[in-house]
């Protein structure tokens, strides 16, 4: 506590500077006067002055004493000294600074991502109050996803009775063909309740929301545009409000324009099982009708709410649970199906990126640690070389705390230089992620080197500086005078052990990281070569959205698709073509409960749930899904013929285990009739290549037209080149209906590649960090071994003089490196076995303790270590014994 008082006195002094000057002045004059009086002679004053010395200097040094700067003055002095000595050994400093810059820079870049995605509040007012209540599957049922939509009546009832929500809104994706403004274009739209915008707390920059009155069936003719659409389609027309538009053939009036950047909901911020657009471009009233649920009316609503100011997530959950109880009392049949879980919007948005980000954070932390180890080792080697300097300084009276302070200052100077370069590394890393990273990182546009990130970088710099500075300081403390003098120039073996320990740590850390990278790489290629149930080569896909006004009757819809398919099939190069509700790896489609006549269930809740996909004849062969038994749909499967269906293997195995499903019957509860199974197809993966396909049933569009068929995906397997195929498809569709745009024109391979962006990104980053780790560890190995060769020069000379051959020396040095690497690898393998278990969720087709990865990485690391020892070992081998013996 002494220093506290000292600082207090110094601060006091600052406020009384003038008083101090006066006091000192008077004190000195008194001294001179008294001395002059006491001394005899004429020139007494002069003599007194001479005895006193330089009074100006006395005043000056007295003043300086008080300056707060002096404590920092020594610090500054140390820093200057450090800079000077570092600039003398350029190679050392360059390696140290670069190592640190890599470590600090990459961790800063990773932090900037984590900061925006996981830590920073969303750009909505009081974002913690925004909650998404998702329905969840009944206990014990696995669908591959955990978020289910609400049905209309349950939503309206919950919105009416909820006590914790201030605003509750439903929203539902709907595509719109915008016609009459340039070429017809398909826009990603959202039907939303009037409370949608108040729930988010966002206001339009232009105009207003629609009101609750406008959100009524028959009155829903308002549209709010996104800023991007307003600029691109309407040239930022300030008089856009009140303008009439034609969307899906119906008249709409523009009532508002949202602020730039607002595109809620975005697909990658929402559950993958909902097919939300990449960016929402317009919002229209959802206009839910109030009546009871129609037979067969789908549950398809997503719900968002803003909590009351005094409510929190737990209360919202309690509210949902209470609602579930009430609902189940009134409708016992719905038991288990109405359970909902409240999830904070922030949590939802961070979504799937949370775990990969934490994985990457772990990797970067390991790199930073290795960088610290490396620099600590470098500094240690340097401090050994500088032993004489320290002994001299200690002999001249420098206390050990003073020496430690100097060493710490030096490491901080290094860390600061590393941090400064690291900021540039981080800046360019962020740039690369933005340019080449996956497009589905949430809120990527917000990522930047902002003050928060810079503060983080500064903190990391300080911590690393202290971390790698402490080790050599401990060394310095131990280097007490007497020992050093006794040991002479031979150096202490104790600190050789310290260096080896650091090196072993480094090798172990690097091994863990490279094993993690190896596992990710292996599972990535497993994913690529996994049988996804389709063949994406040369398959063109696009989306057709029919306006409901023009295609009101189901016969019209069926007729349009039939004609379109006929014309497309006739195109040059087309091998097969078909339509589907949902393409592979593009999200989950509709699911439904099945009725299986030969497996009756007593409890309706035990009925199986399967994916229900409407396709056309030719679709399965267009995406290359083999039909393993039975047949594909035929043109002859019509509304008036026997209803037929195709099941996938997963469904066949689940419902008819050990039996041939062909000829069996299955139906959906809302249809009276049963379908006959005519074929068994391979399992197609819908959500991602990562997971196993669930049970799925295909039905043919001509036999079971649903309203959802207004939007269908077309798949086209063709030998023609891409542009010709697209042009021909466009012409074919235009020749039937000139107002129909082709949307989302993509190759199926692109969809596959898009679904792989996240595993690819994690794999690349971890592999990159693994490579860093390996390079750093080999630099460390090189440093330790060449230092030890220098230290053992005399010993080597003696060995040679006693008859050791050059190969013996070479082997001895390599052996030393191999021992260190071996210990590091052994420790690393144990740690890796523990660590990789936490990675199971990232792996596909590879066990966390994959012996091949462990083996290959260990061999690789041994190889790298040996390569790093090669140069010093050769140097040892080439030593001239006579010179070596005299070496001091």
């Amino acid at each position: 506590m002494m220093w506290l008082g000292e600082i207090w006195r110094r601060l006091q002094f600052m406020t009384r500077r003038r008083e101090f000057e006066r006091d000192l002045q008077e004190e000195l004059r008194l001294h001179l006067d008294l001395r002059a009086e006491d001394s005899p002679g004429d020139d007494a004053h002069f003599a007194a002055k001479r005895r006193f010395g330089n009074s100006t200097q006395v005043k000056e040094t007295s003043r300086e004493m008080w300056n707060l700067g002096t404590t920092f003055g020594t610090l500054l002095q140390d820093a200057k000294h450090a800079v000077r000595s570092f600039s003398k050994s350029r190679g050392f400093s360059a390696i140290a600074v670069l190592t640190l810059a890599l470590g600090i820079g990459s961790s800063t870049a990773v932090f900037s991502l984590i900061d925006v995605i996981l830590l920073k509040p969303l750009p909505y007012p009081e974002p913690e109050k925004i909650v998404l209540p998702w329905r969840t599957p009944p206990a014990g049922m696995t669908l591959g996803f955990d978020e289910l939509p609400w049905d209309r009546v349950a939503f309206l009832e919950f919105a009416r009775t909820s006590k914790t929500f201030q605003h509750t809104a439903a929203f539902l994706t709907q595509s719109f063909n915008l016609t009459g403004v340039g070429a017809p274009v398909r826009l990603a739209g959202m039907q939303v309740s009037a409370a949608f915008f108040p729930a988010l707390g966002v206001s339009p920059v232009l105009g207003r929301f629609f009101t609750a009155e406008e959100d009524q069936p028959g009155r829903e003719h308002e549209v709010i545009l996104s800023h991007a659409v307003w600029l691109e389609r309407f040239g930022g027309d300030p008089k856009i409000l009140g303008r009439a538009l034609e969307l899906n053939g119906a008249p709409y009036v523009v009532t508002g324009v949202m602020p730039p950047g607002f595109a809620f909901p975005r697909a990658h911020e929402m559950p993958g099982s909902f097919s939300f657009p990449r960016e929402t471009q317009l919002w229209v009233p959802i206009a839910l009708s109030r009546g009871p649920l129609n037979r067969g009316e789908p549950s398809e609503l997503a719900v968002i709410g803003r909590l009351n100011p005094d409510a929190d997530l737990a209360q919202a959950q309690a509210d949902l649970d209470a609602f579930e109880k009430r609902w189940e009392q009134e409708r016992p049949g719905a038991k288990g199906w109405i359970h909902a879980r409240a999830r904070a919007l922030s949590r939802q948005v961070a979504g799937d990126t949370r775990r990969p980000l934490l994985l990457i954070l772990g990797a970067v932390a390991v790199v930073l640690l290795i960088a610290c180890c490396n620099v600590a080792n470098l500094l240690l080697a340097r401090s050994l070389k500088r032993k004489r300097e320290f002994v001299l300084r200690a002999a001249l009276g420098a206390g050990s705390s003073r020496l430690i302070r100097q060493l710490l200052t030096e490491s901080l100077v290094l860390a600061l230089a590393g941090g400064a370069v690291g900021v540039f590394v981080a800046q360019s890393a962020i740039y690369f992620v933005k340019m080449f990273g996956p497009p589905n990182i949430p809120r990527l546009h917000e990522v930047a080197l902002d003050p928060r990130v810079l503060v983080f970088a500064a903190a990391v710099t300080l911590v690393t500086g202290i971390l790698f500075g402490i080790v050599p300081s401990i060394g310095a403390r131990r280097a007490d005078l007497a020992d050093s003098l006794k040991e002479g120039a031979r150096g202490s073996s104790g600190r050789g052990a310290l260096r080896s320990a650091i090196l072993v740590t480094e090798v172990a850390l690097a091994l863990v990281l490279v094993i993690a990278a190896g596992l990710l790489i292996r599972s990535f290629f497993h994913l690529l070569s996994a049988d996804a149930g389709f063949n994406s080569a040369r398959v063109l896909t696009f989306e057709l959205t029919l306006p409901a006004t023009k295609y009101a009757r189901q016969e019209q819809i069926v007729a349009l698709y039939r004609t379109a398919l006929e014309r497309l099939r006739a195109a040059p190069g087309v091998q097969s073509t078909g339509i589907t509700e949902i393409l592979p790896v593009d999200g989950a489609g509709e699911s439904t409960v099945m009725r299986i006549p030969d497996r009756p269930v007593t409890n309706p809740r035990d009925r199986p749930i399967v994916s229900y996909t409407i396709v056309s004849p030719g679709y399965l062969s267009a995406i290359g899904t083999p039909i393993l038994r039975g047949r594909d749909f035929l043109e002859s499967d019509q509304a008036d013929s026997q209803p037929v269906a195709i099941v996938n293997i997963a469904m066949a195995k689940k419902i008819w285990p050990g039996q041939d499903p062909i000829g069996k019957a299955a139906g959906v509860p809302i249809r009276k009739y049963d379908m006959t199974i005519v074929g068994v197809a391979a399992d197609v993966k819908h959500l991602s290549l990562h997971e196993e396909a669930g049970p799925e049933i295909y039905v043919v569009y001509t036999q079971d037209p649903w309203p959802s068929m207004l939007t269908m995906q077309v798949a086209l397997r063709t030998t023609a080149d891409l542009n010709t195929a697209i042009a021909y498809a466009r012409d074919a569709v235009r020749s039937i209906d000139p107002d129909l745009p082709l949307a989302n024109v993509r190759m199926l391979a692109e969809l596959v590649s898009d679904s792989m962006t996240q595993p690819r990104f994690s794999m690349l980053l971890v592999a990159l960090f693994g490579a860093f780790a390996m390079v750093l560890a080999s630099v460390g190995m090189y440093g330790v071994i060449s230092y030890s060769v220098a230290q053992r020069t005399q010993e080597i000379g003696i060995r040679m003089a006693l008859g050791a051959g050059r190969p013996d020396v070479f082997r001895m040095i390599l052996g030393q490196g191999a021992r260190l690497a071996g210990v590091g690898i052994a420790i690393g393998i144990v740690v890796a076995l523990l660590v990789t278990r936490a990675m199971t969720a990232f792996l596909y087709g590879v066990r966390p303790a994959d012996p091949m990865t462990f083996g290959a990485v260990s061999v690789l690391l041994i190889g790298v270590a040996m390569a790093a020892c090669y140069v010093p070992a050769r140097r040892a081998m080439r030593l001239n014994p006579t010179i070596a013996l005299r070496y001091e």
Partner: protein
Amino acid sequence: MLILKTLARGGQQHGYEIANSIQQISREILEVEEGSLYPALQRMLIKGWATAEWGVTKGNRRARYYRLTRAGRKRLESELDQFRRVSRAIFRVIESS
């Protein structure tokens, strides 16, 4: 250390008195520039080893009087200890050779 010792013995003294007593006690062997006393006094104030107060001398002049604090006494103890140890060691080295 010398100043600490002087103050410890003499109680409250002003700069000139301190300089004189150091000189007298050391029998004029230690002849330093008297001015260097003052920065040292300032240092003691900073460290909290001494406090200063303005007073009046016998000759009726205003002078700043320094007085040792408890921290100052402790410091003196430890410095004396240190000094004794070093001087004993030096003495032994000189005698033995």
